[in-house]
Structures are given as C-alpha cells and as structure tokens.
C-alpha cells in the first residue's frame, strides 16, 4: 500500500479548507455529545459533503473545531471507507460485493462498470461525473445484486440496465423527504468537474484505498481464463 507522504514543513497545497457555514453547522452538534471529539464523524460527513472529499486542510480545520490534534482526524479518516482523501466525482457508485450479490452477479457488475466508465476502483472519470468503489454488504441482499449511487439504492441491477441507469440524471435522487442533518449547509457543493481537472482522474492510492492485492483487480480472473 502506498501512502501519500506529506511533510508538514514543506507541504504546499493542502487543498480547500472548510467554510464558516460548515464550522457553524459542526458546532451545532456539540450539545448532542458530552465530548467535542464525538462530533468527529458528523463533522467529517458534513465536510465531505461540502468539499467533495476530506482535504488535509479540512482535517486541520476539523481538528481545530474539535480541539484535537490533526493527526487524530487523519487517524479517523483513514479508518473509515466512506471518507475520501482525494477528490471524487459528483456521483459515487458503490457496488456491493458480498456473498449474496456475488452469487447473483455482483462481480460481473463491477467489471461492466469499470469497462463502461473506463476507471478502476477509487478512481474518477475525467469529467468528474462518476467515481467507483466496491462495498461490503449494503444490507439489501434480498434485492441482489445491488449498488448505490450516492444516496440512492439501486436494486436487482441487471447488466443490460446499466447504460440507462448511468445516463439517467436523477439516478442519485431520493424520492422521499430528506433530512439535511448531515448535509452541507445551504446545499454547498464543490465543483466536481474542476476538481477532476485539477487533480486528474487517477490519483495515487490514498490512505483508505485498498491494497491491489486485496481487490477485484487480482489476477484471479486472468488465471481462470488462461
């Protein structure tokens, strides 16, 4: 696994920081918990909604709000799979790869998506529209194979539906009343296309990207064909 090594003395661009509105929203969680540190996950969720990912500067800012060392924030960010340390696309596709989905075609679904989007796991399309990742059980095994596009769960996805699904502009819209508790304040949204241009569509593996040895990119498939 390769880590992006950042020297804090010579580090140049730490990425975007969080806005005052985001700070304000994070502070709104303080009275829910007896310690400030417990606001970590809500703070990171809101930060990621606002910035598109959790930048190094954002980690520092969150640390400042929660009164913890920045390394503690990095510690948490790197542990959880939902936090991205490099920019992602507007829509993140999470495909389930656990047993029920795999038995009913989950593995083929990932391969088809990789081919259609031209990207690998934890990568983003050049136009900044889609990022792809696989997830362990999404708890919708009765509708296997399933995948999520941002918040929207797509159930019983068939390969021949994929084109239509990817082209649908509403493929991540929930048809239900939403709670904005964990949203970025005021619907703050990053410019995903600019992020993708700036950083390229393929970043170095980040802290929470998985080891090549452990993903679907293994040589298992190739060995089988030969």
């Amino acid at each position, binding site marked *: 696994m390769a880590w992006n090594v950042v020297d804090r003395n010579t580090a140049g661009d730490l990425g975007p920081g969080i806005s005052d509105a985001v700070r304000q929203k994070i502070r709104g969680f303080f009275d829910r918990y007896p*310690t400030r540190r417990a606001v970590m996950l809500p703070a990171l969720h809101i930060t990621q909604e606002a910035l598109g990912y959790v930048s190094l500067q954002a980690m520092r800012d969150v640390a400042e709000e929660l009164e913890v060392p920045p390394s503690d924030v990095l510690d948490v960010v790197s542990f*959880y799979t939902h936090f991205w340390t490099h920019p992602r696309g507007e829509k993140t596709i999470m495909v389930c790869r656990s047993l029920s989905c795999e038995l009913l075609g989950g593995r083929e679904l990932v391969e088809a998506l990789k081919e259609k989007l031209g990207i690998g796991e934890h990568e983003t399309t050049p136009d900044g529209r889609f990022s792809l990742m696989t997830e362990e059980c999404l708890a919708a095994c009765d509708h296997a194979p399933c995948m999520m596009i941002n918040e929207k769960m797509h159930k019983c996805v068939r390969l021949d539906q994929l084109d239509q699904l990817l082209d649908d502009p509403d493929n991540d819209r929930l048809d239900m009343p939403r*709670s904005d508790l964990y949203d970025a304040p005021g619907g703050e949204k990053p410019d995903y296309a600019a992020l993708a241009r700036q950083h390229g569509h393929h970043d170095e593996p980040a802290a929470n990207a998985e080891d090549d040895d452990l993903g679907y990119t293994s040589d298992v498939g190739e060995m089988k064909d030969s």
Partner: protein
Amino acid sequence: MPYEQILMRNVGVKNSQSLKVYQQAGGYASAEKALKMSVEDLVEFVKGGNVRGRGGAGFPAGIKWGFLPKERETTYLCVNADESEPPTFCNRVLMEHDPHMMLEGILIAGYATRTNVAYIYMRGEFTEQFHIVQKAVEQAYEAGYFGTNILGSGYDLECYVHRGAGAYVCGEETGLIESLEGKRGWPRIKPPFPAIAGAFGKPTVVNNVETLAVLPHIIERGLDWWNGLGTANSKGTKMYCISGPVNRPGCYEAPLGISTRELIYGEDFGQGMRDGMKVKACSPGGLSMGFLRGDLFPENPSKGEVDLTSDYDELDCILDFDDVRRYDLLGLGTAAAVVVAEDTDIRRVLTNVCRFYALESCGQCTQCREGTAWMYKIAQRIEAGAGRSFDLDLIEEVTKNMGMMPGMSICGLPDGAAWPIRTLVQKFRAEFEQHLAAQAPNAAAERIIATNPAAYDLPVLQGRALQPSGGTYLVPKD
C-alpha cells in the same frame, strides 16, 4: 400456515413510517404502560421473557441491563443499527417500514436502564433509512415521546441519530462505542464491560434494533404469550432473512425454531430454489456463523443425529439459539441465510468470505489482521487453480489459532472469520480436493514464479525445493 406478523405487521401498509399509522395500530401504548411501572419491575419483567439479543451473540437483554452498577449518575443507551453482517437486512426492513417500533423500544429500554441520552448508531450505508429514522425521531419529539418529562412521568430522554462511515467492526459493541466517541472503531479490551465503563467512560447498554423492537410487544401482550412462542431456550419471534438464488428472497417473521429447510423451501419463506436447483451450501445465521451442507448431499440415515464427519444433508438444522451448535455453527447469529446453489464453484464462495474478513479486520490484533489476509491469499490461489496440496490443512490450522475462543483477540471478529472459513473447508473438502487434483501439475509453481519471482528465488525456498516433503509447490528451475 402463515405465522402471525408481529414485528412486520406494518410492512406493506401505506405510510407505515408515520407516527399516525403506528399509533393507529396501538403504538406507544406499551411505552406508556412501561413508564408507569417501576424500573425494577420493568427489568424483572424483561428478564422473565428471556429476551435474547437479536444482534448475533444472543445474550439476554434483561441480564445485560442488570449488569449496570446500582449507583450511577449517567447512563447511555446505544442502539446498534450498524447492520453490516452479510447477508442480514432485517434491521433495514424494520427501520424502513416501522421506525417508531424501534423508537418505542428505545423509550422502554431507556427507562429501564435510567438512561437520559440514547444514540442510534446507524451504518453509513443506510441513507434512505437514515432519513426515515431521523424524520421519525423528529415526529416522536413533537409528540412528546422524547424530550423532558415524557408523558408526564418525569422521565427525560434525548435520542440522537449518529451515522457511521463504513466499518464492519463498528457493529461490535465496544467498537461501536469507540466510533461514537469519534475514534477509529477499534474494539476495547474487556473487562471493563460497557455496562461498567462504556461510552464516554460511563455505564452503557448496547442493544440491537430488533431486540428493542420486540419490547413493546412483550409489554403489550404479556409474558405468557411471548414464552409460548419459540423453543425451550429461545423464546419469541424472529425476523429471518433469506437471500441468494431462491425464488422469493426476503425477510420473513416466524417464531424461533423453524428449520433451515423450511426457510429455503417453505411456502411462507424462500419458496425453493431458482430453476429447481439443489442447495450446495447454506450459511443460516449470517456469514460469521458458518456453513451447512445442503440437500445436494445424501440424507443422513440416522435421523435426529448429527454426523459431521460424513457429507450428509444438514438442512434440518433448527434455527434457534441452541440447535445450531450441534452442526458446528458458532451460534444463531442474525438468522440471515444465504444459499449457495449446486452450480456455484465453492472456491468462489471461499474467496468471497475470506476477502470480506481480510478487508474488514480492524487491524488491532495480529492473528486476525494477518490471519484473515493470509487466508484470503490462500483462497485466491486455490480459486486461480494454483492451490497447493497443503493449503486446506493450512487454512484449518490458521482458523484454529485466531479469535476470542483460543484467547487470542480482543473482539469476536476473528471467531466470526474462522467459523465460516473452517466449516467451508471441512464440510466441502471433497470438492476442494477435486479441484486441487484437477489442477495443471505445475500450476502452483508457475503462479508463484509469475506473481512473485523474488520469493521464488529466495535461497531458503530453493533449499526447501530440494526436499520432496517440504516444498511440494516448488519445482527446480530447469
């Protein structure tokens, strides 16, 4: 005959998530009744129902509450809605269709444990469910079921939804507590148990969503009704999940004690396999509990007795808290079954299971972090048709040296990894051996040369290659 739907009574009802519909079905009446009881009576009452935890371990909820120290100021209640065990989805169904049932359970459990703050720890993948539950919590606050002086009883309870961010290990109760505190979800060394020092160092109770959801019904209908359901040591009703290539995958409620066969083939449950296929394997209790042999194997001639040494059909396993152990399963777990059909390569199942634990191990204890990744590598090479003759024994060896039972780990994740992997290798050994025998003679050696030539060139391995018994997978170069 269909079983009475109790927890799932509102599934399929229009607007079942709303407070109004829940109240029309008699909702929150039990909470009102409970708030009039004394705390001690309520705890005794729940103990009388022997409500065993629905989250996996099967520990009785009333006894768990009883561990709280008598003298305490602050208590926290954590609701474990981090349903990450594949292939379990009963909590999702419950929260999606009837969030108020869980909230009423929280109110009752909160009162019984003298809690003033309850956190619903919900996994990050639950997005629609988060919006539903958050909305329901807001409704409950408005109706006065949370907040101060609830229903005039003088009891205060705040309820917050806390979202996780994708980590299986946060379903372990101390992992959940660590994550709630804003740290990485590393399980804690016990003791002290959460009941003594849990969230924020205070006495804490962690209960599963379904465990809480049954509380209102026990109070409403009484202990006699509850104890009349289920088997000797497993009382009450349970939401069973069935998924995989069955005709009707889904979540179905039944009293504890149906058999695996009924869950797969029953008219009220899975309604049999797709295309009339046979069952090769079935994991009846969530992945971590282990695998059963399916009806692809011959029937056991001595009915009622379990013979683990022969490849017999094991679908007669009763899904309650006790019978599963006779079949070398870890426990009932979440009672979520996944079925593997006869046309599925068992090696692919093994790789999938091993990958899950290799990726979800939190990395704290060495034998789990290294053992799960090691087994994943072994499974990958077996699937690639490059297995080594001793690989199956090696996997068994590794599984026997990880987990809490041999006293090697902090939490139960490695036990949960060892069981499915070991039962797969043991119970389906014949098939694995067939695959190994059918491999190209030098496949294992070629794979290691192709994937890791440096390792092949290691002098120590070259030395082993000279010994026929030592390096069975190595061939001398030229």
